[in-house]
């Protein structure tokens, strides 16, 4: 029997309290589950959270039921909802070599090179506004970048689940934000690979 831990994809979300990282992780969890991943576990930081302060959320995805609920320490992917968090938190802590950093930033991908890791960037804040969202709503948009870079879940499944989760709260604009970001995501492999746009 193979150890369950090795089949689990671990995604750590970095956002600010109130920014919606938990909701975003929940949407991805739903989409993963509906796409055939039988095991999904999403856990916010245990304890207290403060609006505006950096917070993390853990998402584990697996083909079979997940029994280990301990917080993620060695993520495969980190999702960063706001590039200013990079000044406050070491988002690469424990990130597996070659792991993805999915980043919302207005700056070009070349400005965010993390040696030994792969980076995917998009100006999620701007694209959210283009999609019809209030400025600063980034949690749905960044799901598009995660979908693009990771290839884990189809963008249509992600967009559908966004629309369901945001029923009554601009479902179409939120889903559109993810689609726009999916198309605009730029990826850079700083393992010595090439960009893919």
């Amino acid at each position: 029997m193979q150890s369950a831990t090795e089949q689990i994809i671990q995604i750590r979300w970095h956002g600010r309290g109130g920014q919606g990282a938990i909701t975003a992780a929940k949407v991805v969890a739903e989409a993963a589950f509906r796409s055939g991943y039988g095991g999904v576990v999403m856990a916010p930081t245990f304890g207290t959270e403060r609006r505006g302060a950096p917070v993390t959320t853990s998402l584990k995805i697996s083909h079979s039921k997940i029994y280990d609920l301990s917080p993620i320490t060695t993520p495969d992917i980190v999702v960063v909802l706001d590039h200013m968090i990079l000044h406050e938190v070491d988002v690469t802590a424990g990130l597996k070599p070659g792991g993805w950093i999915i980043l919302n930033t207005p700056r070009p991908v070349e400005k965010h090179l993390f040696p030994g890791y792969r980076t995917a960037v998009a100006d999620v804040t701007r694209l959210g506004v283009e999609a019809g969202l209030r400025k600063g709503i980034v949690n749905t948009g960044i799901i598009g970048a995660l979908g693009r870079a990771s290839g884990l879940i189809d963008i249509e499944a992600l967009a559908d689940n966004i629309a369901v989760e945001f029923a009554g709260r601009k479902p179409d604009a939120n889903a559109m934000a993810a689609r726009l970001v999916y198309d605009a995501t730029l990826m850079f492999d700083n393992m010595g690979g090439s960009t893919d746009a």
Partner: protein
Amino acid sequence: MSNPIIESGNVAAAMAVQLARAEVIAAYPITPQTPVTEKLSELIAAGKMDAEYVAVESEHSAMAVCIGAASAGVRAFTATSSNGLLYMSEQLHWAAGARLPIVMCVVNRAIGAPWSVWNDHQDAISQRDTGWIQIFAKDHQEIVDMTLKAFRLAELVHIPVMVNYDGYYLSHTYMPFEPPDAEHVDAFLPAYTYKHALTPERPESLNTVTLPDARLDVDGIKRGGYMDIRHNLHEEMGKSIEVWEEIDQEFQALFGRGGHPVIDPYRCDDADVVIVAMGSMANQFRVVVDRLRQNDGLKVGILALQMYRPFPSAIIAEALQSARHVMVYEKGLSYGNQGALYGDIKSALYPYPARPRLHNFIAGLGGRAIPTESLYQTMKTACEQDLQTPSAQADAPQWIGLQL
């Protein structure tokens, strides 16, 4: 069957209480329990649940309201954590002595001082002698299923039931589970009726001063004294294990889930070393067991204990008869002695021919992280060293993950 959904453990508990058609909810908010009662108050406010939500000023009052409701023949529910549970302690004893079928979710959290909002089991463990039935869930599906079964059990044996689940690890974590459909739940859980239900037509005295000796009541019927009533509580708590197993079978027939209501063993059949744990940590150990078997060739299994009070001594002792070593991991203890669960398991094994060597580990108090890697390493070390450890030393609890 209904479709699985992804929600938090607290929402899972609230959904079960809604499906159980609880009629009175009285609760006081405390982290990490708060979202359960928030959800229930929302459901009631939105007209999705026909219940009275009684906002109280303390946990003591919350339990007092539940006692009043259950005495009037109404299905009552509350939920709490940590110091809130301790604040209702006096009323817990009362509810059990009065044999009221109240169901309470305890979202397990460490007890102050020092103040902590994080998980361990000391809150429930400290209330183990109240006369409440205590069950422990390992995941969200069990939270839902156990809460529904808890109402059935409470009302069949007339003993209150505490459904325990880990704060944060389960309460605030999201995972898939299947909410049972309402129609089947109604078939499974008939309406609560109470033969002593308070009514002006038939006044009764309930739990007034009860003398040491049995006596004839006003109708000339012999009534037990305090000790007779308490003896009956003890006896019938023991008999509740069998009823819990029967309920699980009924539940399984209707919903297709269950089968391990008292203990849930994983890879224990040929195990030389059996780990015993309660709550979500028992599921975490499945991963550790797989690794120890795969990487180290160690025959290890995990026995999850689902029911802590009444303590299923015979079931546990029999399950451990072929093990050479038993490792008890727990998140609470009897200070100045050992882990509470460890002591219980040791005493359960005493009358049995095979007494495996026992080891006690204390983990995760006040939310101290329990990395799977450290569980794996402590188990590996313990398996390699255990025969050399003098028994007196092995009997003392080992604390995992101390930082000072």
